[in-house]
């Protein structure tokens, strides 16, 4: 089996399982709504101020929503020793990582797509700069969070406090990516400066950490 067929098979399995059970997605959608409401009660800026800080608010909210999604990434694989079965099979570990990351990516993008209109409504947001740039920002930024999150979630599997270990590892690594996402979003919302360099930086970050993750995942999985 080729790399991509294994990736596709694992991804399809995850999507099919999630679609049938709707385990995580319902609670996570509601969690996303609650996060937006809490933020809107904690920070109620004027329309002018909100354009400056909305970038930060939105991405912090997305980070916490992504954290909830990432925490249960590998949980399904632990039940019935699916992960052990995968490790014993001749399939390489790298497509498993990619499939998990892609699954998380789709999941978080859906969450973001649902949270964004809520933020626009609660904060009366209107972008002054080029709105189309928000698409690559969302894609590259989400991938930056998800690729590292999936990797560290796999590391956290064999630790005593699994849920807390993921954010402990993920947050320091996400700091440059968060700066990129927040500044790029603020650039688009306020229209005061160009987001292009930040988008390029996010892309570089994605490339470096995706390659590093793919290369090192085999070692992690064996250590699990």
């Amino acid at each position, binding site marked *: 089996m080729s790399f991509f067929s294994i990736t596709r098979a694992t991804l399809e399995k995850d999507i099919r399982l999630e679609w049938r059970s709707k385990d995580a997605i319902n609670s996570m959608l509601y969690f996303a709504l609650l996060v937006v409401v809490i933020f809107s009660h904690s920070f109620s800026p004027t329309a002018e101020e909100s354009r400056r800080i909305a970038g930060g608010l939105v991405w912090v909210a997305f980070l916490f929503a992504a954290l909830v999604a990432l925490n249960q990434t590998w949980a399904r694989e632990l039940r019935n020793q699916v992960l052990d079965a995968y490790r014993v099979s001749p399939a390489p570990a790298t497509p498993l990582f990619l499939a998990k990351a892609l699954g998380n990516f789709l999941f978080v993008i859906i969450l973001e797509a649902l949270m964004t209109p809520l933020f626009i409504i609660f904060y009366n947001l209107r972008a002054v700069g080029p709105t189309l740039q928000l698409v690559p920002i969302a894609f590259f930024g989400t991938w930056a969070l998800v690729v590292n999150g999936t990797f560290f979630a796999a590391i956290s599997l064999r630790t005593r406090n699994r849920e807390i270990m993921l954010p*402990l590892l993920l947050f*320091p*690594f996400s700091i440059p990516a968060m*700066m*990129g996402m927040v500044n790029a979003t603020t650039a688009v919302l306020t229209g005061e400066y160009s987001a292009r360099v930040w988008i390029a930086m996010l892309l570089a*970050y994605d490339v470096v950490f995706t390659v590093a993750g793919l290369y*090192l995942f085999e070692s*992690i999985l064996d250590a*699990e």
Partner: protein
Amino acid sequence: MKRGISTLAVLTSIMLCLALYFALAQPDWPFGTPTERTMGYVQRIFYYHVPSAWTAFLLFFINLGASIVYLARRSPKADIVALVSAEVGVVFCTVVLVTGPIWARPVWGIWWDADDIRLQSTLIMWLIYVSYLILRRVSTSSLTAVVAAVVAILGALLVPFVFFSIWFYRTQHPSPVIAHGGSLDPHMAFVLLFNWAAFLCLAGLVCWTRYRLEIAKREVEEAQALESLMETSR
């Protein structure tokens, strides 16, 4: 080995005492250091802040090297070197992050400058290595060393991005320039380097002792595991 450590311990104590004296001595004392014109006496914390930073970064660099060696060769000694250098590096990095604001507040009026590249990158390195040490402690995997080495390598990959993101942010949002530069009086340069040498001796002493401690600890654990294995197989 034992004599080596005792010699190093004596050398370290002598150098640290001398370093303390040189750093704090006023110019009218023998071998005193001039007090800085604008900043005053509080500037002397510089003699602890800067050498600690250099030592911490050196130790983190050693950790990176040991992690790479461990992943390539799986040698247990490399793993112990990685662990030891991370632990001592975090201590020195904590010193940097604590003495920095103490120095900055009376001199520049601010505790923390969010746009300062060195400050932020030091903080992020500290965060990564604290997470590294916590991972080592709570990991129940049989190959913790591999996982830790991977995290250290990823941390090294992160550093250029940290530098770039803060540097670029500053070009877009220029903040008031806080003068870091200025030439260094040769007397001060001597005290700075002497302090660094003393700190390196201290770091070496602590690392060496911790290394021997870790080897002993692992031997004890192996012996205990072997003993319980023998008992269960009986």
